[in-house]
């Protein structure tokens, strides 16, 4: 689907390359040069009408933010220095006082409408605040801060951002620090009369010819499409976060050290044209991606990329598992006769590959501790047994139906973590006590805990395949139980239970998109599927 794409709460980034460090900590590592020269500062006080327990009341929401004055096509537009201040009327204070609240902690959500040309999208700016005392009288002012989604677009034209609905969740606490009853108040607000159009926060010209480092250069006409724009415009929010404190610098891969890389250097895996939408026969340069060279290929070697989201039930959101390389050895294709039809079985076995290790690249994941405290962690999925793929195509007429299973035992290893911006020492051995687990349809044949991802597809002669085939890729879905954590903590402090409470549990939906495979080991690797050094050429993009 083309057009502006909202990215609800799930963090996204259009980082390129091995990156994809999807979450939270990307903003702090943005080098200043990655932002178009010139900054547009916004300070708008907007009228709202908020629904309080005691009734609807007018309120003022003040929004400050900084935007690049302009951006090139494809360049990330990241609002920075975002603060949201809401002045709740005395009636709100009375509601809190009635709960015997002494302090209140706030989390805010501002919906921002993003528009460019005929395209529309929505972004959500999340903010959090430290607890503040509840005044005895007068209004209550709450200021929240946080990182917000970045935007990218693949066409030229003015991109506008307009403030929309606003909500603030209040977590009051009594003088003794105990939660009140009820423990939270949700205040929703809608924009009030805005005759001056102040809700339009910013208009950022986007044009292909805009230089990123010369503030004096006028932008091109916003109505002229970029000749290099590969697809129709699609402003995409890409990185909502809940952070309130800057993270330590990280590499684009999310590694805990190294030279910070702006997202402009990495592959865009969640935005822009996917390689599978381009001409497979056109061996154009592949977008940056984690290396996926098969070191010692055999004639049966295949490789592919996979990327996608994993819902975290406790977060009520999703984390992006970054673009990861899979290298497998295809087994012999088999015919099997069953009552319904002949079946063609395509087996393969191998695993993830990242810098010589069987794991995903490190990535940022966001969770909520105690239901509202933002917890971010740098994690990897570490393979602890072989990854197996098994495609089963029933030769039925007129449509052949395919069912594939990808099984892989992986543990979730935590490399570092922060709770509400405060770093936690997790130690070197912090991981789930056992592999992530799915319901296995054939437990006798495939014992042990492991993830099971299922792909379904169909093929009709003369038509493109639909859904998932092992060789063509496509969506794989599954659901994971995340076991308890073990080995987490340092200096005598054990944080196993903290992480278990924040992360572990059932019902974590996973949707991964696999690229078509590169036939690494054949004498002449197909150029549309493989790079010259026989890495997968096509880069999948995550889907929800």
């Amino acid at each position, binding site marked *: 689907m083309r057009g502006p794409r909202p990215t609800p709460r799930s963090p996204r980034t259009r980082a390129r390359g091995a990156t994809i460090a999807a979450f939270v900590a990307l903003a702090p590592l943005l080098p200043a040069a990655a932002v178009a020269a010139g900054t547009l500062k916004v300070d708008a006080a907007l009228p709202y009408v908020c629904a309080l327990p005691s009734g609807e009341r007018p309120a003022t929401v003040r929004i400050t933010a900084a935007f690049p004055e302009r951006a090139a096509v494809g360049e990330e537009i990241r609002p920075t220095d975002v603060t949201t201040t809401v002045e709740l009327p005395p009636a709100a204070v009375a509601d809190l006082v009635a709960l015997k609240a002494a302090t209140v902690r706030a989390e805010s959500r501002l919906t921002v409408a993003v528009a460019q040309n005929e395209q529309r999208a929505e972004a959500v700016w999340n903010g959090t605040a430290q607890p503040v005392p509840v005044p005895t009288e007068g209004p209550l002012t709450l200021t929240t801060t946080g990182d917000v989604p970045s935007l990218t677009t693949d066409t030229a034209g003015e991109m506008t951002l307009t403030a929309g609905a606003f909500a603030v969740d209040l977590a009051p606490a009594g003088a003794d620090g105990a939660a009140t009853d009820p423990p939270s108040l949700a205040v929703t607000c809608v924009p009030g009369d805005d005759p001056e159009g102040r809700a339009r926060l910013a208009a950022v010209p986007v044009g292909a010819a805009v230089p990123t480092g010369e503030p004096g250069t006028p932008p091109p006409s916003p109505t002229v499409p970029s000749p290099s724009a590969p697809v129709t415009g699609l402003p995409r929010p890409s990185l909502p976060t809940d952070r309130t404190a800057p993270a330590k610098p990280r590499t684009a891969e999310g590694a805990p050290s190294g030279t910070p890389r702006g997202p402009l250097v990495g592959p865009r895996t969640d935005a822009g044209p996917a390689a599978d939408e381009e001409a497979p026969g056109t061996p154009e340069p592949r977008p940056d991606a984690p290396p996926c060279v098969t070191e010692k290929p055999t004639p049966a070697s295949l490789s592919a990329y996979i990327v996608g989201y994993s819902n975290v039930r406790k977060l009520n959101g999703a984390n992006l598992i970054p673009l990861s390389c899979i290298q497998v050895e295809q087994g012999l*294709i088999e*015919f099997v*006769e069953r009552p319904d039809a*002949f079946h063609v079985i395509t087996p393969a076995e191998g695993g993830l590959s990242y810098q010589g290790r069987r794991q995903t690249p490190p990535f940022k994941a966001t969770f909520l501790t105690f239901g509202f405290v933002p917890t971010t962690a740098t994690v990897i999925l570490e393979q602890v047994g072989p990854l197996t793929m098994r495609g089963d195509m029933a030769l039925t007429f007129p449509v052949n139906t395919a069912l594939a299973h990808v099984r892989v035992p992986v543990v979730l290893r935590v490399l570092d973590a922060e709770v509400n911006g405060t770093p936690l020492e997790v130690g070197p051995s912090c991981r789930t006590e056992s592999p992530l687990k799915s319901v296995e349809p054939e437990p006798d044949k495939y014992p042990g805990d492991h993830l099971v991802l299922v792909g379904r597809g169909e093929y009709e002669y003369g038509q493109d*395949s639909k859904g998932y085939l092992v*060789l063509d890729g496509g969506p794989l879905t599954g659901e994971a139980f995340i076991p308890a954590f073990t080995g987490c903590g340092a200096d005598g402090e054990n944080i196993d239970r903290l992480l278990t409470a924040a992360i572990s549990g059932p019902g974590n939906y996973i949707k991964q998109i696999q690229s078509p495979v590169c*036939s690494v080991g054949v004498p002449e690797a197909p150029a*549309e599927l493989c790079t010259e050094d026989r890495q997968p050429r096509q880069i999948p993009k995550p889907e929800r």
Partner: protein
Amino acid sequence: MKKPIRNLAVVAGAASAAFALAVSPASAVASTVWTVTPSPANFTALNSGNIVLSVNGIAMTCTKSNAAGTMQSATGNPATVGSISTMVFGAPGVPCTSVLGTVVATPTLPWAVKVFDYTAATGVSKGYIDNVDATVTAGACNFRVTGKASGTYTNSTGKLAVSSTSGELTVVSATNCGGAVPVGAKPIFKGDYLVKVAGTTTIPKIVGSNP
């Protein structure tokens, strides 16, 4: 595990289909002088309908295919009236497909267009594509097909209808294809191409005669 008995059943099915395809009227008269108009000429050809290579009951289908080469008058029976120097299966964004997934076929060229029978009443020449040689890849399954493929050419429409019979093409090597494509399998190649003189809308003519 591979199940040879099951595979034989599939082969038999494919072979039956091939015999059916091979049935055609045989009323033409052998010709020795073949007049191609214009001659010599470059030609291009685009598929009309799907191009299908079937092996052991597995069809590998290309919805797009094109070819180019030269054609010229010739003498003999059979006579080589054309040479295919470009043969593309699939197109950017439109790969060839199969139940295994995307299939990539890489021909080793040139292939020859040979004719041996001409029916003046219909303007149809019978012949075959000779020196067929192509490598086909589906994942790690990689096999090579060589041989020839029978076909007809119709002057009124410019249609080159390729419909090989079982045994004309043979899988001479195969790697990682298991029972799906064993060495010695007899694929069937079927598809229609519409031929034009390159850069024009002119349909070339092939006329056989016995002076």
